[in-house]
């Protein structure tokens, strides 16, 4: 996917000026949050489970090589194939080669952020293969030619009218005057359209929430059952996934599953949790003819051993973005690449470079809400700060900001000079603004006073007033 992360500011401005998007974001704001809280209230051991989930992933990441090789051996012994892909280009070519060998004309797809990351759909289309998204949200944005704006709710940026309009434009096979005002009517229409696609598809592609070393299985969670139809009805099931999804045992996956859905949608469990191990066996009633896993690195192994390793614990629940006030204000597309919100602010610079994605770790108030809700206890603000440090070291941060910090630091390191300058500033601003109480315009504060006033200082600094009132109360 082509990044527009470098244009974050422009993207955000456009998003804030888009009333439909703002309406959609307003709808989103409360549902996820209340449901998550209710689910957690019903599970007193939730925080203890978060600790265990964190420890499981930390252990797996410390022994990534061991578990990946053990997992691969199990996949092979179950009759499956593992394809190691260094980058997006390799991953796309591996998928295409499998599809071409099977003469695939259409592929169905379960929801996969890795498929977004490697921009699989446009590549398949360019090679004459038709990809059909089968997750309702993904299907909606596919027919609208958009990208996901949220990692678990890809169409969260839309309101219902827009979906109705798109269905009427695309589903021309149906009566033009049919009613499409109830969510149920929209769902049923999509379901009917997709049913035929499932049956016609040659290859099914899904992602994976977990890879299990103990059994060589991949696990997906869905609420629509589309993943199961995608992967069981076809000649081949291709799992596109990335290497940090590995966990040692099924029990470990089960532990993490207990925090995943609760954090994501406030469900105790997703409606479907599907475990896949190898292709269809001779006595199986159904299942794919072949089972392939395309295991993507794409920069992740470079994060190991760095201050960003903890990010690889992420299980893509979306809680950080659900709770992020910046995400709620600008929406997911403003972030400009596959992963939005706080997790994207850390992951995107790791995967596509901080030169391109430098805005993202800066576009946070460090309010800390993301870290407080993360089921894997990922210290997201701390890692965003690490990116800011790298930007500062490499002189990537804007010159005006660097100059401002340098001038401020010069003073802050010289308390007597600082005292003199702050005293003068307080005097002058106090004199100028006291009658009005606040400034509508202030030099060097143009951004601030665009939409708010700047309250006036009281006129004398605390330190001067203190020295005057309590000459012996100051200790140097």
């Amino acid at each position: 996917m082509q990044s527009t992360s470098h244009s974050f500011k422009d993207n955000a401005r456009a998003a804030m000026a888009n009333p439909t998007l703002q309406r959609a974001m307003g709808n989103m704001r409360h549902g996820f949050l209340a449901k998550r809280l209710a689910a957690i209230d019903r599970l007193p051991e939730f925080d203890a489970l978060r600790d265990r989930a964190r420890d499981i992933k930390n252990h797996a990441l410390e022994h990534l090589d061991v578990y990946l090789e053990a997992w691969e051996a199990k996949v092979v012994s179950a009759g499956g194939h593992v394809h190691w892909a260094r980058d997006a280009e390799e991953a796309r070519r591996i998928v295409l080669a499998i599809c071409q060998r099977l003469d695939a004309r259409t592929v169905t797809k379960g929801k996969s952020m890795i498929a977004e990351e490697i921009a699989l759909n446009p590549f398949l289309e360019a090679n004459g293969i038709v990809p059909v998204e089968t997750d309702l949200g993904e299907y909606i944005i596919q027919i609208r030619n958009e990208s996901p704006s949220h990692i678990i709710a890809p169409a969260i940026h839309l309101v219902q009218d827009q979906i109705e309009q798109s269905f009427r434009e695309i589903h021309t096979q149906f009566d033009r005057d049919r009613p499409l005002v109830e969510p149920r009517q929209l769902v049923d229409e999509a379901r009917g359209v997709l049913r035929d696609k499932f049956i016609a598809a040659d290859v099914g592609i899904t992602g994976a929430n977990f890879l299990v070393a103990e059994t060589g299985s991949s696990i997906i969670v869905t609420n629509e059952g589309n993943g199961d139809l995608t992967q069981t009805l076809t000649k081949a099931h291709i799992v596109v996934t990335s290497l940090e999804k590995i966990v040692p045992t099924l029990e470990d996956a089960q532990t993490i599953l207990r925090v995943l859905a609760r954090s994501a949608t406030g469900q105790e469990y997703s409606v479907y949790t599907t475990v896949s191990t190898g292709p269809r066996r001779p006595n199986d009633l159904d299942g794919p003819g072949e089972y392939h896993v395309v295991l993507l690195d794409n920069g992740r192994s470079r994060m190991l051993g760095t201050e960003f390793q903890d990010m690889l614990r992420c299980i893509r629940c979306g809680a950080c973005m659900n709770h992020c006030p910046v995400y709620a204000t600008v929406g997911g597309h403003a972030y400009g690449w596959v992963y939005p919100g706080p997790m994207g602010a850390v992951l995107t610079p790791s995967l596509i470079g901080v030169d391109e994605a430098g805005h993202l770790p800066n576009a946070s108030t460090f309010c800390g809400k993301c870290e407080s809700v993360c089921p894997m206890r990922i210290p997201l603000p701390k890692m965003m700060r690490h990116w800011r440090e790298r930007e500062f070291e490499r002189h990537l941060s804007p010159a005006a900001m660097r100059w401002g910090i340098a001038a401020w630091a010069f003073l802050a390191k010289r308390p007597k000079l600082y005292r003199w300058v702050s005293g003068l500033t307080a005097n002058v601003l106090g004199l100028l603004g006291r009658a009005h109480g606040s400034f509508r315009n202030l030099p060097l504060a143009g951004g601030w006073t665009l939409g708010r006033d700047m309250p006036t200082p009281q006129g004398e600094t605390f330190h001067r007033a203190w020295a005057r009132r309590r000459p012996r109360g100051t200790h140097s």
Partner: protein
Amino acid sequence: MSSSDSAASRPANPRVALFVTCLVDLFRPSVGFAAVKLLEGAGCRVAVPALQTCCGQPAFNSGDRETARAIARQVIDAFAGYDYVVVPSGSCGGMLHEHYSALFADDADLAARAGDFGKRCHELISFLVDVMGVSAVAARYAGTATYHDSCSGLRELSVKAQPRRLLASVAGLKLTELPGAEVCCGFGGTFCVKYPEISDRMVADKTRDIVATGADTLLAGDMGCLLNIAGKLRRDGHRVRVRHVAEVLAGALDEPAIGEPATEHAQARHTGV
């Protein structure tokens, strides 16, 4: 930490160094004096070390680790020898308490000093309640207030119940809860400079919620949030009075509220509103 643990081990009249914060120093010294009054009222002996400027957050959060370290060392030196360091800000408090030791992770001696320093640092209101055991204040306030939980105080220092507990003891004050009190106001330190439009939209959401409560006063424990919220309310013509919680708890109401014109304040005092 529970209040009994820290109360048991503390001196009866501890020596407390006030970390004023750069925003209180420049914008609102009355908050510093209110803090001194509250601390002295709780039995503390208060000093104000002269060699303090800022906690270093602007550098720390801009990725300028070297400057942040230099300022942190300066602060640790200036505040050596006191029983406690108290800050009328959750944001600066979080910096001193949480982040200084991380800045010196590569230097065992400095990390130990920073760790010891961090343990002695407290946000003002939680210090009064949790360490000094204050459960009520002798203040009066005529009005209905709502309270915004500043992010760092809330999430780094667990400041939540303490201000509400003390406000409940203020005669005449009615406290009404703010929906979304824990949602960031959009200040974010350098964030409001780097992304002013997003920051402005966030504070607009916050002030909309504040106005909807019908409260005549908005309180919080951090000057950054207070300047942001007061500036937005003023611009939009709302007459909600904005004050640091310490001012109300100390009964320090002589100065106009944040962003309030002197005449409006005098008029309000006169009519007793």
